[in-house]
């Protein structure tokens, strides 16, 4: 054993430890150099992936509007029982808060936030803001507010204000799974006519599952055939798989519109063959979405399958057949199980890409074929309710991570995505 390890340094050993230290230093330097090479990538990932995701998650729970603009009202509502309309003090506090707003934009922000909670609140808040100035005793302010809009005498708007009094809220995230908090803060299901995202999430998953299934059914035989061909011919045919893969999605979607429309090539071909009398509805419905998505995502299924199949030795199937198995049984019981990693990787890849699809359903689908991303875009661009958009984004992210986790658990394979 080395003496330095026992803690008794002697001159020759000191030389040894010097060497050791020098070695360690050299090792560390090498590690740092290697690390510094990956540094740009890490910084890039941090800036373009982790920071935006953190910001997205923050936006999904942030709720600054009411707390910032109506602090006195929120305070005045703290002891309120949330049953019938609050006392005059709350009206007085609201009048004061509205007087303190620097700009109509602040009232607009409150109006937007409360309107998302309670449709109709926008016009109430803006009406109250325009009814300024409020002065005098709280009773007088109450009368003026009721004059501007009689709905101020109902408890609903006050509940909405009290509920949004804190700077952070679970409401957006709850709404993304069709839940809400009642006046007392208990979580409950949304009323029937306000539930939407559960069915949208279900629709997103079912479209993705159907697309994954079709990709597998179409991709598996093709990959198998490619893997059985000699290298040179396989490479040529692989180009046919890859060329569409390299073409812009928009171009391919536009091509599908041309092909699938009622006067399009597919319908005219089928009618020319006498197979159908009337043109089939292939566009602006689920059929069109699935056809185009399968086409676009097929390479993501074929490539992992092909690479796994290339590494499966043909001898096993031959051995099974020579031992008396029928070719079909040999294929399903010997060959297919060896390609499970490829099936898993391809299916996961296709499914995860599919649940985030936006352009294809937006252009080829009807109102009932839109997937979650469409509504994220809608809440971002049209409704300008970024809290809700971020909550839906978080939902999509969680669904993706969950799926990946489940896959890792069940497949127990170290699968690198991509």
């Amino acid at each position, binding site marked *: 054993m080395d003496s330095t390890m026992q803690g008794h340094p002697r001159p020759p050993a000191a030389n040894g430890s010097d060497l050791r230290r020098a070695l360690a230093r050299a090792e560390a330097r090498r590690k740092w150099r290697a690390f510094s090479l990956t540094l740009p990538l890490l910084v890039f990932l941090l800036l373009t992936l982790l920071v935006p995701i953190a910001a997205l998650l923050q936006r999904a729970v942030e709720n600054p509007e009411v707390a910032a603009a109506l602090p006195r009202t929120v305070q005045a509502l703290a002891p309120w029982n949330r049953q019938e309309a609050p006392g005059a003090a709350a009206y007085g506090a609201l009048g004061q808060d509205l007087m303190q707003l620097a*700009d*109509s*934009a*602040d*009232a*607009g*922000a409150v*109006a*937007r936030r409360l*309107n*998302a909670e309670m*449709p*109709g*609140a*926008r*016009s109430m808040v*803006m009406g109250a803001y325009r009814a300024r100035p409020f002065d005098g005793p709280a009773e007088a302010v109450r009368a003026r507010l009721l004059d501007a809009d009689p709905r101020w005498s109902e408890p609903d708007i006050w509940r909405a204000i009290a509920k949004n009094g804190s700077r952070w809220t679970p409401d957006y995230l709850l709404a993304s799974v069709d839940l809400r908090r009642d006046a007392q803060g208990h979580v409950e299901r949304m009323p029937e*006519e*306000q*539930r*939407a995202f559960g*069915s*949208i999430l279900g629709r997103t998953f079912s479209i993705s599952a159907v697309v994954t299934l079709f990709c597998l059914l179409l991709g598996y035989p093709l990959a198998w055939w490619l893997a059985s061909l000699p290298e040179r011919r396989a490479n040529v045919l692989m180009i046919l798989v890859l060329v569409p893969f390299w073409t812009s999605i928009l171009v391919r979607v536009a091509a599908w519109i041309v092909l699938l*429309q*009622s*006067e399009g090539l597919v319908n005219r071909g089928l009618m020319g063959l006498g197979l159908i009398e009337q043109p089939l*509805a292939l566009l*602006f419905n689920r059929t069109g979405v699935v056809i185009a998505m399968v086409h676009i995502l097929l390479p993501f299924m074929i490539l992992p399958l092909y690479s796994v199949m290339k590494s499966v030795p043909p001898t096993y199937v031959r051995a099974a057949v020579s031992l008396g198995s029928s070719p079909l049984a040999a294929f399903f019981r010997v060959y297919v199980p060896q390609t499970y990693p490829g099936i898993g990787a391809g299916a996961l890849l296709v499914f995860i890409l599919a649940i985030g699809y936006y352009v294809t359903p*937006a252009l080829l689908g*009807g*109102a*009932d074929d*839109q997937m979650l991303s469409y*509504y994220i875009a*809608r809440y*971002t*661009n*049209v*409704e*300008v*309710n*970024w809290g809700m958009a971020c909550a839906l984004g978080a939902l999509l992210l969680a669904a993706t991570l969950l799926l990946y986790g489940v896959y890792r658990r069940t497949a127990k394979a170290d699968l690198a995505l991509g």
Partner: protein
Amino acid sequence: MKQRLIAAATLAACFALPAAAQQQLTIVNFGGANANAQKKAYYEPYEKAGNKLVTVEYNGEQARIKAMVETRKVTWDVVEVEAPDAVRGCDEGLFEKLDYSKIVDKADLLPAAVTECGVGMFVWSTVMAYNGDKLKTAPTSWADFFDVKKIPGKRGMRKGARYNLEFALLADGVKPADVYKVLATKEGADRAFKKLTELKPNIQWWEAGAQAPQFLVAGDVVLTTVFNGRIDAANREGRNLKIFWPGGIYDLDYWVIPKGAPNKDASLKFIAFGMRPENQAVYAQNIAYGPANTKALARLDQKVLDDLPTSPANAKEALQLSVPFWADQGEALEKRFAA
């Protein structure tokens, strides 16, 4: 010496360029046939008068404007927006308040065209239309639109709740004047959604305005809701598309100036130019949308007037889009539509 001159010239150019660029206005519109008409009526004459313009097309995403205003990097000078967005954006401080004394006499405009932040540019209408060459029995009411037994075939509708819920109530026998009163109640909304759901298997949804006339021409649908100007544009290309005017929902598009836009005065000047009766008349001649400046009407001949949503015959049984209703209820109803 020569080098120093070049350096000085380059330096001067660097400072001069942004100054010159500041005079150039960026005008944002919705594209399509409407943008072409605006080009002829407003942009080209304004450029001829020695001004510089750049035009940008967008789809009405208010998020773009909000992001610009919040980051204080406003690159758009004058933006065309739909009525609910004009009101909502004004409330939320996305747009500059307008000084009408620098634009136009308010008395010359339609009452609905005068708002705090946006000045109404033209009146357009969402109407029912059909192909006169293909459909034998013309529809006579909105009930026919929802009745696939009487007129078999698919219907085109805009993907979304707005307009469609109003049409559903009209078809269900609600009078135009009562539509928003009924729709504001829970029972009324239920009724509209029920009617719309019944028709759903026969609806082919469109999103871009140009799609609706295409569907009609291709024979994909027999009836469709459509912006009336698109029908006009298709008929100018030799189609025989017909409009059913009663129950059409009319609305205005507005010009707004995003808050903090760098060339506010020049933008006001452009808007004032666009609101002049002579320019508004040219616009209406190029697309069948009603001028917001009523003085322009005297400059239009009867044939043009007959096709405008503002003509007395066409406006008689029409419905004005309720902006306060959609600003309040829009998000909730659109969400319900999505479910």
